[in-house]
């Protein structure tokens, strides 16, 4: 993979920040956008924009085609059996909330349980708490080990009473980098009668996702982390589930017919897409998908594995620096704490060198507390990240620690 060539595809990477070359190590929060994405959105607005579906005029037909082509691209990306199983939402968070409402309230019974893990993002915790409080389901949490992996024995034990109706679990932790054993999770869950939702927000950026091979029931992710625009996310779900689930939001586009007494719903997936969708964002997302597929997941994964290995090696040599998580199978995010400096101060000092990292609880408070911390700094990598950037981070961190000692 030619990283220098890829970097030229991202206009922002030539920016200087405070007079320094930008070193962007915050891709797990949101990735930068290649020119093809920027151009796709611009071109749509300049040449064919109109609202989609039922337009009957040229621009509406063209825009509908372009928007629906995004659905095909997503289906192909995830190896979904059926394009109609792709529901467009705003982000992963909305995808998970959709499942919590339509499947949770609609198909789980009070007394059944939802099983999450100890390394979830708030977006895969809070919707299940809200479901618990509104609907009377139980919320169970499968613990993680000190190395930051799912405790499989405990996980299985929590399934054993057969009351778990849904396992909702991250496919890759945004803090620990841990990739969870998806197939194994599915086979255990299914054996105990539970459906499985993966929060793939991070995983889709680092791995080729094949929902058929994984065998899960729901898979959620978010466009802006996969080099696409904000405002669009994806829920994939098995058709029979989508058919059976009541709708979530009501309004235009999601109906088949409306009278005051009773409305009937549009066919899947439109039943779940109320109102004018994120049209331009769908078009941008398709460009992003085409872009990453042209590079290829094998290439991307190899690049990120090499970056991650390099980062772990470099950072672990820094005195007083503690890395969170040592999973065997891990993706390109590294969260760490310095003994002498608070994560906020670390992030600010790095910023003054032009190095962008994130600091805080990374929307994973319970996970932070599991490791006895309130916040960490986190460096995360994208296809445009270089080994030199990681060297720059390591060098700066050494200075930061000296500065605070």
């Amino acid at each position: 993979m030619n990283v220098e060539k890829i970097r030229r595809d991202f206009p922002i990477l030539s920016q200087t920040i405070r007079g320094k070359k930008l070193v962007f190590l915050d891709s797990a929060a949101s990735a930068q956008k290649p020119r093809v994405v920027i151009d796709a959105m611009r071109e749509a607005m300049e040449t064919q924009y109109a609202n989609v579906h039922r337009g009957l005029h040229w621009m509406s037909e063209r825009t509908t085609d372009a928007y629906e082509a995004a659905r095909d691209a997503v289906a192909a990306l995830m190896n979904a059996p059926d394009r109609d199983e792709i529901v467009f939402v705003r982000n992963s968070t909305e995808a998970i909330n959709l499942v919590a409402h339509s499947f949770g309230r609609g198909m789980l019974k009070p007394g059944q349980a939802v099983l999450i893990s100890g390394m979830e993002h708030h977006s895969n915790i809070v919707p299940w708490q809200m479901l618990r409080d509104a609907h009377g389901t139980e919320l169970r949490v499968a613990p993680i080990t000190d190395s930051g992996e799912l405790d499989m024995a405990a996980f299985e034990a929590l399934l054993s009473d057969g009351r778990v109706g849904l396992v909702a679990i991250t496919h890759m932790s945004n803090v620990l980098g841990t990739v969870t054993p998806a197939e194994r999770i599915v086979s255990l869950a299914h054996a105990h009668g539970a459906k499985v939702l993966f929060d793939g927000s991070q995983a889709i950026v680092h791995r080729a996702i094949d929902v058929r091979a994984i065998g899960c029931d729901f898979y959620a992710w978010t466009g802006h982390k996969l080099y696409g625009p904000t405002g669009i996310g994806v829920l994939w779900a098995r058709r029979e589930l989508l058919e059976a689930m009541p709708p979530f939001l009501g309004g235009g586009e999601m109906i088949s017919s409306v009278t005051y007494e009773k409305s009937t719903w549009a066919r899947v997936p439109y039943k779940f897409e109320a109102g004018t969708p994120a049209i331009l964002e769908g078009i941008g997302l398709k460009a992003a998908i085409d872009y990453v597929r042209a590079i290829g997941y094998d290439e991307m994964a190899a690049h990120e594995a090499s970056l991650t290995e390099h980062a772990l090696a470099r950072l672990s040599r820094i005195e007083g620096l503690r890395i969170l998580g040592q999973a065997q199978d891990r993706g390109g995010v590294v969260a760490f704490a310095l003994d002498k400096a608070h994560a906020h101060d670390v992030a600010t000092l790095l910023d003054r060198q032009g190095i962008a990292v994130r600091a805080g609880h990374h929307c994973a408070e319970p996970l932070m507390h599991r490791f006895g911390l309130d916040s960490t700094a986190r460096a995360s990598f994208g296809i445009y990240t270089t080994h030199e950037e990681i060297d720059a981070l390591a060098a700066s961190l050494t200075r930061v620690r000296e500065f605070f000692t």
Partner: protein
Amino acid sequence: MTFDDDVRDLYQEVILDHGRKPRHGHRLAAYDVTAKGDNPMCGDRVEVFVKLDADGKIAETGFEARGCAISVASADLMAETVRGRGKADTRALFETFREMVRTGKCPEHDAGLDESLERLEPFAGVHEYPSRVKCATLPWHALVAALDGTREASSE
């Protein structure tokens, strides 16, 4: 520019020093009012303890803090600069300080605050980092809450 040049304008010596070795970073043996401040977004937490004199003016302030250098240094310099001030006076100083860390400029203010504001001036650089303004203001929120008799403050 060296690393130090880049960072010293924000983390001036006084901030580093008070962040590392706060003079007032302890619970008072005896105090009249107290409150907690919480910034759940970043996990910063501070608890302030205030002893009042006979006129209701601040005799002494102590605090226990968990947070970044800026919030700890801010708590410490706050403790120093509010000594001898009444409630209204403390609030006025806080408002002026807050404006300064938000904008980087010291707004018009009462002459009586001059000296204290000079002491607090190193925090003006924080305005470059809007998301860290609350690090600097959290202890003040807690102090004002304590004086108001509220037990909790948040600087979200």
